[in-house]
């Protein structure tokens, strides 16, 4: 390095002249932009900003300038280096982006091969529809009530005003334990859970009872000796048939969509009076298929209504049998078959699909219906 020289004229140090510095800078910038990879850029950086680069060499000359000239030369040098560094940074970023993009392309896979590794579990739709229905009623403040599947005949029949000689109480319909006189049956409906609720719960009672029930039918495409029901029961002061109708409409809308209503038709059940059949407005065609051969509906067979279940006002005799004063309390009950509900709601055509445990069937429903 040269020693400071007071009389030295900066103009004469050619490497620090504005023209020469500008030349260095422009050489460096064109080299930078010509670099096509990060490796090339690294070499360009060494060549144009390294210790042996023209700018570095010129920088050393500043020390030799007279003080008066140092400041101006230093400023010029700083600007030149700044311009080169900025160009380097910009190019580095450009090249890094290109490199990253190239890497991503290189690492690409056939994403459609990601089949066959999904979770294969599933819950049975008869389980999840029970939960879904329970949730509708729990949201209304109901409790979920349960009871045993092997049940006393008294709870299954007597307490429900089903007389000892009622045709349902024969071995043609009911599974008896041991003998027809044992007083023990496989419950033929979930109604004994209602009796249990009336015997054990505090009034008022608002319960929903889903569960497995049994009748002596052979398995075929529409019957099963083991099937499922859901029943609802309300016992409170001043409960009316209008309350029953409103509750059924709410249930129908929760399960089948806004605006769907129910229709009641007179019927007979020993444990309710008045009794009714519940029809559900067809949630597919909403009745538009009736007398309209151009747009038939498979779900309701173009009838506009689907038979859904039974209901009625709790027979005062049932209240008496459970120690509830019918002068003070009244109530309603309703019940639906869940297999049937699943069949028309999900287009299941054969009861056996729900019985056989074929993994394809359950998997199709995932974790909920």
């Amino acid at each position, binding site marked *: 390095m040269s020693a400071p020289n007071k009389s030295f004229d900066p103009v004469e140090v050619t490497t620090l002249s504005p023209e020469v510095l500008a030349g260095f800078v422009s050489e460096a910038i064109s080299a930078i932009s010509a670099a096509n990879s990060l490796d090339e850029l690294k070499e360009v950086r060494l060549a144009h900003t390294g210790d042996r680069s023209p700018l570095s060499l010129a920088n050393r000359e500043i020390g030799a300038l007279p003080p008066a000239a140092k400041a101006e030369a230093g400023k010029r040098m700083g600007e030149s280096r700044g311009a080169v560094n900025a160009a380097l940074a910009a190019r580095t970023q450009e090249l890094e982006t290109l490199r990253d993009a190239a890497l991503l392309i290189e690492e690409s896979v056939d994403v459609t*091969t990601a089949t066959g*590794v999904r*979770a*294969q*579990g*599933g*819950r049975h739709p008869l389980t999840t529809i029970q*939960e879904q229905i*329970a949730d509708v009623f*729990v949201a*209304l*403040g*109901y409790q*979920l009530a349960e009871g*045993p*599947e*092997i049940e*006393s005949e*008294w*709870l299954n029949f*007597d307490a429900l005003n089903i*007389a000892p*000689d009622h*045709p349902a109480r024969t*071995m043609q319909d009911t599974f*008896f*334990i*041991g*003998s027809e006189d*044992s*007083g*023990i049956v*496989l419950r033929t409906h979930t109604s004994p859970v209602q009796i249990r609720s009336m*015997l054990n719960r505090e009034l008022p009672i*608002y319960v929903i009872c889903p569960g*497995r029930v049994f009748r002596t039918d052979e398995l075929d495409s529409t019957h099963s*000796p*083991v099937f499922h029901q859901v029943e609802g029961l309300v016992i*409170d002061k001043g409960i*009316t*048939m*209008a309350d029953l*109708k*409103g509750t059924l*409409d709410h249930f129908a809308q929760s399960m089948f969509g806004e605006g769907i209503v129910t229709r*009641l038709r*007179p019927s007979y059940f020993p444990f309710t*009076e*008045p009794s009714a059949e519940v029809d559900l407005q067809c949630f597919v065609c909403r009745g538009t298929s009736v007398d309209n051969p151009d747009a038939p509906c498979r779900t309701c067979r173009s009838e506009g209504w689907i038979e859904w279940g039974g209901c009625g*006002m709790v027979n005062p005799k049932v209240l008496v*049998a*459970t120690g509830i004063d019918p002068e003070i309390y*009244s109530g309603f009950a309703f019940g639906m078959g869940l297999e049937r509900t699943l069949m028309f709601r999900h287009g299941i055509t054969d009861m056996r699909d729900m*019985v*056989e*445990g*074929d*993994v394809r069937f*359950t998997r199709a429903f995932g*974790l909920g219906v």
Partner: protein
Amino acid sequence: MKIPVSWLREFVEIPENLSGREVSELLLSVGFEVEGVDTVGDVRGPLVVGRVKTIEELTDFKKPIRWCTVEVGAANGNDATPGIRGIVCGARNFSEGDLVVVALPGTTLPGDFTIATRETYGHISDGMICSVRELGIGDEHDGILILPAGSATPGDNAFPILGLGDEVLDISVTPDRGYALSMRGMAREAAIAQRVSFNDPGLVLADLPEAGGTVIPAASDDYQACDLLVLRTLGNYNPAAPTPDFIKARLAAVGVRSISLAVDLTNYVMFELGQPLHAFDADKITGTIRARWAKAGETLETLDGVKRDLTTEDLVIADDARVLSLAGVMGGAYSEISETTTRVVLEAAHFDPTVIAKMSRRHKLSSEASRRLERGVDRMLPPVASARFAQLLIEHGGATFEGTSSVEQAPDPIVISFDPNLPGQVAGHTYESATVEKILASLGCSVDTSKSPWSVRTPSWRPDLAAAIDLVEEVIRIDGYEKVPATLPTAPAGRGLTELQKLQRRAGLHLAGRGLVEVRNYPFVGVAEFDALGIPASDSRRHAVQLANALSDEQPLMRTTLLPGLTGALARNISRGFTDVALFEIASVSLLSADQSATGVTNPPRPSVLQRPSATDIEALEALLPEQPLHLGALLTGALKPAALGAKPTPASWSDAIDIALALGIELGVEIEVSAGEYAPWHPGRCAALSINGELIGYAGELAPKALENLGLPKRAVALELNLSALLAAANVVASAPAIWTFPVAKEDIALVVKADVAATDVLNVVREAAGELLEDIRLFDVYEGSQVAEGHKSLAFALRFRAQDRTLAADEVSAARQAGVDAAAKSFGASLR
């Protein structure tokens, strides 16, 4: 109940232009569900009465053929032979001069079969002489339908004569509405639905000729069981008298076969008015006809040819010599109307419905009569119905009236005290008093509105109306259920599902999330399934609840374990081509205590239903039942999850079965302890007993090879079954947050050599205990048996993770804790570091 519309119209005015479907809707509006509308004989076109004029036998063909000329009326002949048609016919049961039914060309018979003029057997056949079967009005094979001589004129339209084209409604009648099982009952409902008046044929006593002859006396031994017995005796009956066609047609339409005039008329009047009737051959009767209880040892051969042993709970109709019939259920063979009967005695009676129901049930015999009587028949009807029968038998059977006898105990009228506001209170809807009164009157009630509450006397034909609520139902029904508004009652604020209910859902979600598929099997099992599983004879699972009437003799028991159902479902999946199957089921099983019988008790409690059962009664009812806990079962074969591309699938192993249980435990906040177990049907060397705080809750592991072979299932299938109720009860409902320490972790691995029969979990527990609170986690990651360790020994490799709450651990702290673990294992199990 089949209702021909033409028959209905006889008793109620229905506008002519209403179709069967519109009549159905009318009845639906008052609550009668019509399941279908059929048209009698699906026949269209020119169907006329013909008289066979000539018959020429054609013998040149393989089968005998007749070439006939038939008079079909002036308007129906053809141009060449006015009033006559030539017809080729293959049947032979008719003669010249017979009246027949002719389908002229253009007639369409059932099966969409249209008659056309055609040349056959060398003649032009210009129509068809029809059989009952071809007309779709019967199944008789007897050949051509021949109309009674003189009953019609050639050329008459045959439709009304045969009842063709009549629409028949198929109405489902609920058991409480026995009154509706007749034209009379349905006509009343149709009148009510149309708000028109009704002329009740049940109140019209037919005019009978003066009696002349010997009357068979009537008696009832028990007026509780039979409070009215009416006998009508008729003589000079012509047993060959044919049943008029319109009656035959109507009986066919309601599904009853024609037998003989007298029998047909009992059925006809029953369908018309609702009163079951029974006709006896009066010449077979000895002395008095009596309703009485059967004596032990008596027998009766009923009309169906079955010889029945009677008990003292059977009510019979008997004479002085023998039992004649099962009262109201079925007649006896001895006294039935035969081809030689010329004297008829008709029984019309009123019985206690429960007596009839019990008999029908006991003898497994349900007849048109018993169906009506067990539902309740009008107490005032027997005199009317029996007179109607006598009138018809005189008219159509040439009979003469010999006389009537009857015995009765007059019934008490049913009077109900009725608040006219009650229907409104039940329905949540307002009914004007006038409306209520009008509806009750239309049912036949006499309503006294002068006092409040009203006094309502119910009609004899509505024995189902016994209490105020019955009247309420009728008011709401007749006014229309569709008028009832919809309101939503407000339940008290709810607390949602119970903890157990939530946990049960969580268990199901957890298992499905792990890749298991839920099944819901039937609960029926059999001994063969226990045998196949290798469940020992003494095992309590064989002490199972037994069904009295199982659908299958192979499966008469209720499940005590979920495994038979799961193995069945697995077998079905495998037979359908699936090799990787993981099933689970959550369901109750029934577990009898040692002192509970598989067949229940002999004298179960039957508390009164007129009041709440006592606590003792309720307890006794509960004691009848087996314990019914929820079980969780799982059965796996093949890979639980398909392998990734290029990787090998890992089949589920005994450890997966255990892990499913343990992971579920972790999900529910329960630590499930594992120890070696031995329990069929598990492989005795690969069976884990699962416990909570020392209480056994179930088993998991690989199934025994023999059991799998017996069941035809793949080798190495694994299973678990546990008492889910017990697991859920132990669940930690409110999980506690762990302390999350953030100082650096120190990891150490140790391999301990122990004897081969030492349980890894025991070693792990000892090391964990001894290593103290700095040990954050310990995990078994390898088990080695082989040349590197001594014979009869194994090496257990554990990964240990240490961390302190408040500092970075020093190396000597970690090694001291680790050493403490190793030392403890050495002390407890003679373990040495490998």
